């Protein structure tokens, strides 16, 4: 069965809308993520893409996918709920920080200043979505064998882990246990460093079912603006008044 070749791929459309949004002043755009739960197949590609993009250490996760089972046999179903940071408009994590290390930036994204953070984890406690994790300084290759005549060894294998990440547009090395982001709270930031370069967040581009959508909610013609006005759009724990900027289509 032939499909229309004129129909623009949603990813291409979001990319085009992203470029247009970046032309505007930061305060005149509102980044929103929409996750279509009907399309999510629980492949965890977004989780892995996020880990790779942000060089996340063991125990640090920005976008796990919750795997829920409903019903009892024979009427059983599964539901997959990707859970990034909700980028709340009223984020409970911000007022509890004793040193202003976490804050809402000019375009509404909750950022962490790693060099300011003292690692008290009050923000992790305050988050009602469990969206923050603490970096305890692990590497995936630790405790693996060192080089022998048969294997390349830990030194070569952990090249990837020693490569810096580029969160918040800076270069973050992992060379000592005192160096940020080790010891800090960490979380999803909608791939700010990619947005600045005109690229969509890694989880969006990697989603095999186009279930994760992203864009500027203040552009009335954007895909996200159209979707979040639908009656089937909901947000997690809306009763808490946090005003998340991540919407789920159910």
């Amino acid at each position, binding site marked *: 069965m032939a499909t229309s070749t004129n129909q623009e791929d949603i990813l291409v459309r979001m990319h085009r809308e992203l470029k247009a949004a970046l032309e505007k002043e930061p305060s005149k755009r509102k980044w929103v993520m929409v996750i279509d739960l009907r399309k999510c197949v629980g492949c965890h590609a977004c989780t892995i893409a996020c880990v790779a993009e942000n060089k996340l250490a063991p125990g640090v996760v920005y976008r796990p996918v919750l795997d829920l089972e409903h019903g009892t046999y024979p009427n059983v179903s599964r539901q997959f709920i990707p859970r990034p940071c909700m980028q709340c408009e009223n984020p409970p994590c911000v007022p509890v920080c004793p*040193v202003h290390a976490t804050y809402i930036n000019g375009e509404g994204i909750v950022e962490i200043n790693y060099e*300011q953070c003292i690692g008290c984890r009050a923000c992790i406690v305050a988050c009602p979505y469990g969206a923050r994790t603490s970096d305890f*300084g692990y590497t995936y290759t630790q405790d693996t064998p060192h080089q022998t005549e048969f294997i390349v060894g830990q030194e070569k294998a952990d090249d990837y882990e020693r490569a810096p990440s580029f969160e918040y547009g800076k270069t973050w090395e992992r060379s000592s*246990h005192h160096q940020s982001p080790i*010891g800090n709270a960490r979380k999803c930031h909608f791939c700010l460093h990619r947005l600045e370069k005109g690229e969509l967040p890694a989880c969006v581009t990697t989603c095999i079912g186009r279930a994760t959508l992203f864009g500027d909610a203040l552009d009335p013609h954007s895909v996200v603006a159209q979707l979040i006005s639908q009656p089937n759009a909901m947000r*997690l724990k809306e009763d808490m008044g946090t005003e998340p900027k991540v919407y789920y289509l159910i």
Partner: protein
Amino acid sequence: MLKKVIYLISALAFAFGLWGFYIRLFIGEKDVNYGSYVVWGLWVAMYLFFAGAAAGSYMIASLEYLFQIPLFKGTGKPALWCALICMPAALTTIAMDLGHWERVWKVYLSPNFLSLLAQMVWGYTLFILIILASFYVILKQPNAWYLKPLFAVGLFLAIFLSGGVGALLGVNASRAYWHIGLLPAQFPFFSLATGLALSMLVMGWFAPPDENRPRLLLSLGYLTIILLLIKTYFLWSDYSQSLYSGIPQNVAAVEEVMFGQYWWAFWIIQIGLGTLIPFIVLIIPQWAKNGIVSGWMGLFVLLGFAAARANIVFPALTIEELGGLAKAFSGPHLSFEYFPSLLEWSIIAGVSGGAALVILFGLERWFFNLPKEVQQ
């Protein structure tokens, strides 16, 4: 003999703690069992305990120097000394819990005063200065006119900081178990009870027996009983409300305390050792007047309050914020189950042992072993 045993146990605990300090400061935080889900563990619980002991000890000292109650004459200086040592013990414990403890100075230079944590840091700093000033005044200028105003400010701070510690947990709407107005209200009572228990231990075991001591110990014992009853009332109202409300997060946390992995800490240490036994013993005047018995009861109440602090902190954090989170991703420190690691116990042993050694040394050297005319 008792003193020697306590010195020995404290020294051993301190030595064990040195290993923990080395690991924590030079290797890192990997060997702890708290993590990204059970975010605060034993160190935070014990920080609450030591801070409460400091505030409570100051409250006891104010009975002598602010309210000038004759019965409590002689308890002020030792209590103030305990406050002075417990405060650094609390701050050391919480500093170990920080991912970047070397950046604490940022709380002074760029504080967010909306944050309870920042308020606490500034409050504690002021409180330590007030304790030091109080010490100086009672030693050097005991008849100065500003003694009472100084203690009034100190007492206000002790109450505010105790309540603030409760608010530090209570403001988190994300944790239904903590998010009740009652929580900050309870903490000043907990602090006073902890201070009383510490005073009972100090006066019972280390104060030279004189004609006033049995009456003092009896009063401390009765006050402790009253506060234990208040504590039990708070516990009952807290738990019964949580269970009646049926809010899943609340019910799960209370059930975790009573029947979960921490059941023994609740039933055996907090209720049995820390509440029932002291209640039964201290209500009998002959026993309450006995220094050795009184000291033991003080120790039991202290252990009970330490367990109570832990039972406030851990269980609320062992409940998933979102269903399915526990199994969504695996990795180190991503668990909703928690029992303190050897490193965590080591630091607590070191801080407790060190604090006990300094308190004992000070009591012996400056407060209890001097000839009477020098003390006066």
